[in-house]
């Protein structure tokens, strides 16, 4: 019998190594896997490269990871927010590297990694600073920038319900980057509000098929 569920977030993140690239789901705090991140902080891995849409909000989740100086580099689209003080401080202190990626290119590059593409020509960012130095090409009269996949060693994702095979459904706009990050990481670790019996998720409604998920931890209903 295959059972991908684990008893604790601590067990789930125990093999995340120093220097790992870790995708973290969420758009702002919606979909942010706080409990997994807390476990990652306790675990102690350092020099991480984090891929997330933002660079932390407030003092929890990704912000706490940064505040604890575990992050060497952030790949994101929108670091600067009213409550991104931990990132801001680390950035101004020169302690953290930033790769700024337009949000749609971030999504497309993550999806390309999950789908095994070698590179994509995207129109987003052409002619801007964020495409400086990148290969460009005109195709059918339109200008495109060549962008490469973003892969990760681990993805930390928050979903709503999951089963022991790793099938997932999400809740409202907490879905955001979860499904594509799950496809782009070698090891995808998911916190769910509830683990349900196999078969409880309608096969037509599964958003992330279990093949993309290696570990599932139930943390209880939190919203």
């Amino acid at each position, binding site marked *: 019998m295959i059972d991908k569920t684990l008893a604790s977030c601590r067990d789930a993140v125990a093999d995340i190594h120093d220097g790992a690239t870790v995708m973290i789901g969420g758009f702002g705090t919606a979909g942010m896997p706080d409990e997994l991140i807390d476990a990652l902080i306790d675990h102690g891995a350092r020099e991480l490269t984090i891929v997330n849409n933002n660079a932390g909000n407030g003092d929890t989740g990704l912000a706490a990871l940064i505040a604890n100086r575990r992050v060497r580099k952030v790949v994101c689209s929108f670091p600067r927010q009213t409550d991104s003080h931990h990132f801001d401080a680390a950035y101004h202190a020169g302690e953290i590297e930033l790769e700024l990626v337009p949000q749609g290119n971030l999504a497309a590059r993550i*999806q390309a990694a999950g789908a095994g593409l070698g590179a994509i020509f995207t129109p987003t960012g052409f*002619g801007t600073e964020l495409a400086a130095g990148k290969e460009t090409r005109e195709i059918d009269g339109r200008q495109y920038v060549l962008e490469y996949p973003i892969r990760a060693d681990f993805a930390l994702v928050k979903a709503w319900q999951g089963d022991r095979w790793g099938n997932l459904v999400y809740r409202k*706009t907490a*879905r955001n980057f979860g*499904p594509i990050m799950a496809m782009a990481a070698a090891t995808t670790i998911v916190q769910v509000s509830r683990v349900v019996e196999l078969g409880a998720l309608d096969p037509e409604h599964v958003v992330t098929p279990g093949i993309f998920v290696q570990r599932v931890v139930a943390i209880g209903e939190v919203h």
Partner: protein
Amino acid sequence: MATLLTRDRIAQRVARDIPEGAYVNLGIGLPTTVANYLPADKEIFLQSENGLLGMGPAPAPGEEDPELINAGKQPVTLLTGGCYFHHADSFAMMRGGHLDICVLGAFQVSAGGDLANWSTGAPGAIPAVGGAMDLAIGAKQVFVMMELLTRQGQSKLVEACTYPLTGIGCVSRVYSDHGVIDVGADGARAIELVDGLSIDDLRALTGLDIAAPTGASA
């Protein structure tokens, strides 16, 4: 003396150009207020980059759901008939040309339709782009909503953007406190001027050779 439009009146004016059935993304900040003026008797589909289509108004106090937010991370609601999807599908809607209209704010717009709205290039500032570049090049029509002049009185409608670009030749129309101006490959053309403002006034304010509204005397 010209009667300039308030921000709310600009939003109202933008709303008037959004037809029933349009798929629309309203950028964070000022453009979000356009939603307040969309006619209640027409069905217009608001998309939010973080994965929803059919976005409704803010929830009643106490009804907020931290997992139902808009691109500005404010609590919203979902209309009956709306739906959720992941980020790659959301940006496919933009990049694939499926959105009819996108409304954005701007630091500068050029007569040729270039947009600068993500960075002032100020040294030491932390850059942040979000979905601006995807929206700028993706929607069938990109409307910019802005006051024509900076607080220092400089025109934000320019010959060539001096701030870092968001997209090239992507803006089709500017809705400003001074009037409505089309931009693009053929240059700038005024569509409507507010009461008391002449095309020459607008040319003087912007320093641009803006074409007069069709039918008006130059």
